């Protein structure tokens, strides 16, 4: 058994994937983080007080986790959903009552979406009250605000997709609010809806925004956001003298 394990770990294939030994020394532990695509967003070493739960409540990470759940469940829902009137409503009902596990996926998508908005807002509140938005992190705060906007727009565009009465009137109200914008209002509403009333064209536009443009924008923003956290010196730590637990 031990022999087999050694043969695997000394094989050319294994050594081409993992270019360091077992993480049993400090050097190899560092390399394990440093050379791993999924771990490299973390520093090789972090201060214990930077990763204490009460400092960040892990809200940023939890928001990202919600986004991950939303992408996975959303892509699966796309297999049964046609963004056309009136099929969209029937497909949504099919997902709820006919598709095996459909109601679970739909509700998971829905609740994760609500949760993500709440978590992003809470993440902002913690960042604000900790004072972590201050220089040198001021640009990352702006990126965070754009991510909040992307989150809310994703939530809003997803609202129309069930194609029920709630969806219809919510988007009626929302696009009329967009129309109230000075100068560009009327044009903005026309471009959003692809017409003057909410019909199949509007549903398709909201679908494409919801499934392609906004998620891509959010992923790009998220990459910059996480990258900037590292570049701006990691998780914000107040000076030890002001800290309750130094």
């Amino acid at each position, binding site marked *: 058994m031990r022999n087999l394990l050694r043969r695997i770990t000394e094989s050319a294939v294994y050594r081409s994937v993992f270019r360091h030994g077992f993480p049993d020394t400090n050097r190899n532990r560092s390399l394990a983080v440093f050379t791993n695509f999924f771990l490299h967003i973390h520093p090789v070493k972090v201060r214990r007080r930077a990763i204490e739960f009460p400092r960040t409540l892990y809200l940023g990470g939890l928001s990202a986790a919600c986004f991950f759940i939303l992408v996975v469940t959303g892509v699966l829902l796309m297999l049964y959903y046609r963004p056309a009137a009136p099929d969209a409503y029937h497909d949504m009902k099919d997902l709820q009552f006919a598709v095996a596990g459909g109601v679970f996926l739909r509700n998971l998508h829905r609740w994760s979406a609500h949760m993500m908005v709440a978590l992003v807002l809470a993440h902002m509140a913690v960042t604000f009250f900790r004072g972590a938005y201050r220089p040198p992190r001021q640009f990352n705060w702006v990126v965070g605000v754009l991510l909040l906007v992307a989150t809310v727009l994703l939530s809003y565009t997803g609202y129309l997709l069930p194609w029920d009465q709630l969806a219809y009137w919510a988007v*009626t109200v929302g696009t009329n609010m967009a129309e109230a914008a000075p100068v560009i209002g009327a044009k903005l509403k026309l471009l959003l809806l692809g*017409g003057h009333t909410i019909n199949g064209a509007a549903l398709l536009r909201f679908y494409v925004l919801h499934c392609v443009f906004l998620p891509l924008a959010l992923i790009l923003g998220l990459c910059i956001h996480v990258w900037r956290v590292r570049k701006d010196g990691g998780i914000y730590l107040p000076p030890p003298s002001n800290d309750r637990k130094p």
Partner: protein
Amino acid sequence: MPLEDDLSFPTSEEEMARRKILTLLGTGALTVAGLGTVITALRFLEPSVVYEEDPRVSVGKPEDIPPGTVLVLPKQKLYVFRSAAGFFALSSICTHLGCMTRYVPENAQIACPCHGSRFSLEGKVTAGPAPRPLRRLQLTIERGMLVADTSKEVPPGTLLAVT
């Protein structure tokens, strides 16, 4: 010895002028191409053809509608009233944020379910956040039929008298 760049910077006046013109031409071409792309993209996003309902709605023969009638046409999103003096039509789309209002005969008023706006049967705002009275729509008689045009607004107080 100070570190020197491998590419020595061109200092001749002629070379600098040449580069300036080339830069100008380059940025100019990029600006034109960029503007063209933006305009083309915006034109693409704006629908050239929309498949929507005809704004002109035939309501019926005027002689079939007795005075005092309130006609509710939810699909066409309008109300048609016949008072003693004549006909008028109101859009049933709330002027606040576009919800569909409802005629409440018990209180002789029009109510919006979204944010609680109330209108009189003349379309005037009596309560709630609606900023303007309900749109009064053009009514005409065509080939003996009463026709409402939901795309044409007429001033308040306009009546269509039918003899």
